[in-house]
């Protein structure tokens, strides 16, 4: 018996789960007197939903929204501009592939590379150490991603023996629960329940959501990323809504426990502190960003190369930026089709908002895979 993903992709079992979801949706729609809106806060959930074409098979009464759960979607231009400024100043910048094409005020990291800067794509944080070891001068790791990825950056910096002295971190890590708080506190939001991301909860544990449920009275179900995981998670979530109850349920027991990975959390809190963040489209998110603590200032590229960061362009408004409604789409108050730029000024090769940049962005997926 092993966790081979293929066993969680049995279409017959999926069809059975869909029937159960349909029954739950009918009850919830009857109780609410209209369609039931639920939100998932994870780019990888949206990717899996698109990859398996689930959206088309979901019951009509279920409105499944993608919230601010994809780091590429929410990383704002100033953070890209910082990485671009360091790269253009001659420092090698290492980045995950997801961030290479995210537009900054003037250019993306891929554009900087095309203009001669050394920008390399990483697959694992450990590669940053190897590259730093093989590079004479300072190297900057543009560390992005939510808590699941932030703990690996923390582990890198806490490693024994420590990474080479020339490795610096420019942190653009983020903390998703902070964004869920913003969305849930928005009175205009019609979201009746939340599907929480399984791999982030592997780190934080599902206990983290209990105060959230107590505060907002909306159910939270933690789900995995295989089609069966998503369908099961949605069924449990909508059943709670239909029953008028709100609690945290763990639909991903193979990876998520109540307390999560305490060792990883300890590393995270030793290296990072939360900070107010400007997330693309959602604006201020208190405690949304993860900043290196003072004890790691010697590793912090934002401290060590503050002078070069001053060269980053002032965050002026980007062309069409004011028409971009990524924030409303992410918070469940609008659809990509409601955006005047969607599919016209804002296309995959000419993205305005980050939801079009990321292959998991709601707008990109709607344009390419249909609503």
């Amino acid at each position, binding site marked *: 018996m092993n966790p081979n993903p293929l066993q969680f992709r049995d279409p017959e079992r999926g069809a059975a789960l869909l029937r159960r979801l349909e029954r739950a949706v009918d009850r919830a729609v009857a109780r609410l007197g209209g369609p039931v809106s639920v939100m998932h806060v994870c780019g990888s959930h949206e990717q899996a939903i698109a990859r398996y074409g689930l959206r088309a098979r979901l019951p009509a009464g279920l409105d499944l929204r993608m919230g601010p759960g994809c780091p590429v979607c929410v990383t704002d231009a100033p953070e890209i501009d910082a990485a671009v400024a360091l790269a253009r100043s001659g420092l090698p910048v290492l980045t995950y592939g997801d961030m290479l094409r995210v537009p900054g005020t003037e250019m993306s990291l891929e554009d900087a590379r095309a203009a001669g800067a050394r920008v390399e794509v990483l*697959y694992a944080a450990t590669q940053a150490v190897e590259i730093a070891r093989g590079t004479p001068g300072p190297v900057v790791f543009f560390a992005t991603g939510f808590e699941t990825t932030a703990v690996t950056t923390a582990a890198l910096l806490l490693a024994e023996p420590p990474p080479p002295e020339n490795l610096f971190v420019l942190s653009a890590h983020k903390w998703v629960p902070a964004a869920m708080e913003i969305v849930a506190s928005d009175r205009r939001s019609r979201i009746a329940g939340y599907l929480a991301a399984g791999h982030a909860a592997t780190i934080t544990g599902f206990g983290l959501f209990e105060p959230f449920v107590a505060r907002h009275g909306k159910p939270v179900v933690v789900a995995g990323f295989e089609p069966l995981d998503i369908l099961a998670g949605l069924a449990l979530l909508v059943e709670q809504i239909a029953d008028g109850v709100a609690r945290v349920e763990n639909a991903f027991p193979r990876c998520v426990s109540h307390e999560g990975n305490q060792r990883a959390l300890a590393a995270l809190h030793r290296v990072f502190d939360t900070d107010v963040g400007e997330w693309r489209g959602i604006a201020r998110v208190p405690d949304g960003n993860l900043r290196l603590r003072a004890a790691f200032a010697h590793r912090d590229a934002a401290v060590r190369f503050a002078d070069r960061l001053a060269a980053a362009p002032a965050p002026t408004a980007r062309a069409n930026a004011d028409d971009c409604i990524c924030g409303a789409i992410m918070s469940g108050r609008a659809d990509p089709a409601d955006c005047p730029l969607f599919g016209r000024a804002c296309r995959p090769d000419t993205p305005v908002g980050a939801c079009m940049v990321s292959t998991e962005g709601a707008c990109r997926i709607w344009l390419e895979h249909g609503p």
Partner: protein
Amino acid sequence: MTDRPPFAETHVRLAHGAGGPAMRALIDAVFLGQTRDPAALARADAACLPFGDGFLVITTDAHVVSPPEFPGGDIGRLSICGVVNDLAMAGACDVAALTSCVVLEEGFPLETLRRLHASVERACAEAGAGARVVAGDTKVMRRGELDGVIFSTTGVAFANRVVRDDGLRPGDALLITGTIGDHGLTVLSARHGLGLEGELRSDVAPLNGLVKVALAAGGAQVHAMKDPTRGGVTGALTEMAEKAGVAVRLREAALPMTAAARAAAELLGIDPLIVANEGKALIAVAPEAAGTVLAALRAHPLGHAAAHIGEVVAGPAGELLLDTGFGTRRLVSRDADPLPRIC
């Protein structure tokens, strides 16, 4: 299909070489601009010129791949197979002659060049008697002006009957001659130093022998062929369907993949349908001949994993839908080279 904005670009971008819509837009706007030559306008991988009572089939290809050597192949083998396969996709399975131009960066190790040339010769031997390099050229560029080496190869063949890549007809069965994604995922793993070990190997191989077998079995009922290189199965099928003005339906459960390629795609977060294949062909065949052609393919060493993966249907030109078993996904040809994803 989404509307294509007029070509108003001022500089070349990486996307213009990625085998997707941006590349096709560049070719249409810059290279095909005013020409009325039907052979060029066919935009086929190989041009078929009437010659005597048959056709002279000619094609050319330039290969730049980093790293130049990777599990299962190298740029030398790729430069021969790419051209042999484009000729074969047009039905020209007996190569008449090949030329090879090699552009090298100053400082390129000669030991590597010797290995690459030996690999060229092995690939020629595998591709049959006529496949031999009869002419060529060598140039060297200053260090840093070129990333290692470029191989540019031209191939010529004669054929009595040619198969085009725009011959898809509603009702045709779509076959693929083997597993999907092997080459692209292998090169990506090597390029990004991902340290993946296991049976992940490129599939680069000359397909003229395999195609000869398929044509012998299906004859005129083989309506179209194309090798899904740059842009992958999605790119190739989109182009074939657009040219023929038809749509395509695929079944995910029928897509053959090795366990290694499937695992690598999961790990890297990359869709195996958009990465290059260098030893596979997509074949559209009349439904009544599908069984015979499939059996013929599977009897050949390079076709043992051949599979019937979908159907051509009447529908919007270029529309590609994949039945995932859980729903339907629209497959879209991408401009950008796939990158490993972490989220």
